[in-house]
């Protein structure tokens, strides 16, 4: 077992990374809180629908949409008939799980019986139990979940943005799948996904709280193999076929809304290969976004004072190894006009107009948001998961933020990032709209 310690003097925090003989990376972040948090994560999400096992390199496996999410639901079922949620409840732990585009996480938070809960977490994730009966009953539940999200305009607007940006990338597929696709899921397919992706070399365990390292290592020794579990999967998500330009510049749907919602997606296929470069780019664009789109900025004032947008405008840069984009979302009576005003503003703005004062404010916000995230065991554990799955080290982000200059931000602005060919507008209109 090898271990590394990472420290931040600025934050007065430290954590340990342990590589278990099984291949599992374990992160222990000690923090004096009343409740401790644990996540058992796997690098398997909704985009991993087409893959190849190196033992059978010519056999491409293609799976129904929503299977990663379905698997997340079903793993809580056990052969003895006792659902793992009941076990966590009996221990006084608050358990949950989520599936994202590129990962699935099983987690709990506990103020007592932490170690017993950790044992249950590792045990149930490692030991799948799928039958035709329990899969069939879950189809009904997940169908209702899909319908629930279908009724949320913000969700539909977001997926419309992805549909507009990407032609081939499986990121545009709904994480839950569709009512049609989940009916194709069988116990055999679920077992196949589990044995392919849930190898300890493809997973990580992230713990934050007032915990005893020795007790945790003892639990891992008793539950995990002492030999490395190989991970033999390579997958395709369609990103290699994506052009720099968007697939559709405009996507529209009509729903029961009083006022139109919009989501502007700005596609970015220029994703750095190195993790450090990718993180720096994300940080630079986060600062640039604050300078361009925040309530303190000229553009927001122009749009809000002209009564073109509702007060809440959200924005951000999202980045993973195969997909990156900027997005701006809000409500507006005329989303097309809002987009036109945004583009006019950006096209008429020169990088010389980006002031040092605004840059400093953006940098302070990025720094402050990062520091504040260390007040929550949930925030810390999830950040550890995100950073480690991307091959990055958590505290190094402070150095990255610190190193960013106004010139970096100006270069990002000048890089043609906001070219019209890279922009899609997703809109949810009221049902009675004549557009």
């Amino acid at each position, binding site marked *: 077992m090898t271990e590394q310690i990472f420290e931040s003097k*600025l*934050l*007065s925090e430290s954590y340990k990374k342990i590589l278990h003989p099984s291949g599992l990376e374990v992160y222990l972040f000690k923090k004096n*809180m*009343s*409740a401790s948090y644990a996540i058992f994560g796997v690098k398997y999400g909704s985009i991993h629908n087409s893959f190849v096992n190196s033992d059978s390199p010519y056999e491409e496996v293609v799976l129904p949409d929503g299977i990663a999410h379905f698997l997340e639901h079903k793993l809580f079922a056990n052969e003895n008939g006792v*659902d793992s*949620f*009941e076990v*966590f409840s*009996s*221990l*006084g*732990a*608050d*358990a949950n799980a989520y599936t994202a585009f590129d990962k699935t996480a099983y987690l709990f*938070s*506990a*103020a*007592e019986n932490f170690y017993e809960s950790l044992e249950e977490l590792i045990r149930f994730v490692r030991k799948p139990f799928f039958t035709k009966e329990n899969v069939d*009953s879950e189809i*009904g*539940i*997940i169908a*209702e*979940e*899909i*319908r*629930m999200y*279908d*009724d*949320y305009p913000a969700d539909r607007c977001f997926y419309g943005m992805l*549909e507009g940006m990407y032609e081939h990338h499986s990121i545009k597929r709904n994480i839950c799948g*569709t*009512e*049609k696709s989940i009916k194709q899921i069988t116990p055999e397919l679920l077992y196949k996904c589990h044995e392919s992706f849930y190898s300890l070399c493809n997973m990580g365990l992230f713990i934050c709280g007032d915990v005893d390292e020795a007790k945790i290592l003892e639990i891992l020794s008793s539950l995990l193999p002492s030999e490395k579990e190989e991970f033999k999967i390579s997958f395709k998500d369609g990103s290699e076929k994506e052009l720099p330009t968007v697939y559709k510049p405009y996507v529209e749907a009509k*729903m*029961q*809304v*009083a*006022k139109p*919602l919009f989501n502007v997606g700005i596609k970015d296929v220029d994703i750095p290969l190195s993790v450090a470069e990718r993180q720096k780019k994300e940080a630079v664009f986060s600062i640039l976004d604050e300078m361009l789109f*925040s*309530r*303190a*900025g*000229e553009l*927001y*004032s122009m749009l*809000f004072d002209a*009564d073109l947008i*509702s*007060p809440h405008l959200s924005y951000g840069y999202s980045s993973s190894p195969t997909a990156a984009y900027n997005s701006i979302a809000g409500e507006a009576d005329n989303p097309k006009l809002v987009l036109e005003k945004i583009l006019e503003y950006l096209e008429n703005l020169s990088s010389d107009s980006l002031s040092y004062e605004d840059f400093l*404010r953006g940098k*302070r*916000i990025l720094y*402050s*948001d990062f520091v*504040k995230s260390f007040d*929550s065991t949930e925030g810390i554990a999830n950040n550890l998961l995100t950073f480690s799955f991307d091959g990055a080290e958590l505290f190094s982000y402070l150095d990255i933020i610190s190193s960013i200059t106004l010139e970096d931000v100006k270069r990002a602005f000048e890089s043609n990032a906001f070219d019209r060919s890279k922009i899609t507008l997703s809109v949810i209109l009221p049902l009675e709209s004549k557009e």
Partner: protein
Amino acid sequence: MKINQERISENIELSSLTTDKFKISLISFSKVLTLSKEALAYNSIIANLMHRGTYSLPSVALLNKKLDELYGAYLGIKSQRCGENILFTVTAEILDGKYIPDGTDLLQEISSLLAELLYSPAFMREDFSSSAFEQEKKLIIDSVRSEKNNPRLYTAKRCLELIHAEAPEIPTGDEFIELIANADFDSLKEYYRLLIGSSQLNVFYIGSAEQEKVAKEVTDAFSEYPSSYTPSVTVPSPVSKASPCAKRENIAISQGNLALAFCTGVNFFKTPDSYYAMLVLNEIFGGGPSSKLFINVRERQSLCYSCFSSFQSFSGILIASAAFNSKNYETVKAEILNQLNEIKNHVISETELENAKKSLLYSYRQLSDSPSDIRAFFQTKAIFGAKEDIELTIRKISEVTANEVCALAKNITLDAEFFVEGAAEGANEEDFNDD
């Protein structure tokens, strides 16, 4: 956890918790006001208008630039009904001085900013445009009309309106829209003058500063503002039982959404002896994944993804919510009521009781890990003259028996129902991303 309470001037009551546990400090200023329909409308508009700045920072942009300069200080302004009162709160979160590179202490600056925001807001300037006032009214009306964007919350809200139908001080959604639309700027300014002059200021602080320092900064910040006040606090009473009623609405969404409301006659202030048993009852009924609703309506019958209950501590209203295929309305409603009957008939296993208590104990124990949760727990109690700490709450929950839960349940009958009927089955079979 010891909260220090001190009257630091004629009209300012300070509650503070000094701790190094967090990287942020939280400070909030609250006023308790007399409830009326007009006051609810005026306070909503005032809360929105305050985002347009102060006398010295008279715009959204200038106010937000200032917040950004204070390392992304968070500002929240909220007006909410609290029983027979309105609670108007301005809250700020700032980075602790330890994490500011030049060591600046932000407490003095944020206290001055909040004092100016409360007592010298931009909308009271002579040159403040009445068109901005009209714009805020329109935005509030848009926001009320957009409540349908979240079908679950919309359904619950409409159900609660039925309970409050005969309450003269509580407007329905449509009445509220009318009040906002008819609000007059001069009348609002007159109301605001009464507001700031007539009620005590309740300050709550959590952070690393000592009580004396906080008291000094707050006293200094508010020294030039009015200091007299008239007590206007009404300790909240549980809502009386309404005449049972049910309503339906057709909305073009996929799922049906159902809300069932029960007036329990129990709340923290008036019936403290029953309050904790009521919390346990809610948890057993529909509080989480080991609750009767989750296990029987979702897991056993696969009727929905979301089915749960919640208990409102001030009003004493218990509300059960579910989202499902509309054709299953009778089955879902019957099962929800059946599970409540089980509790009435003492069909509560030892496991159900213990799991419910453990879930509650967890939520109260981990409360001390979040500044905003600590504030929410202590401040509202302190404002209404109650003193209770977390440890006492935990002890009282632990002592609740099944007999007490059963006895409370026997008095609970259905008071209001609101059902939003969604589309017919099969309406959403089509894939969003058909290839």
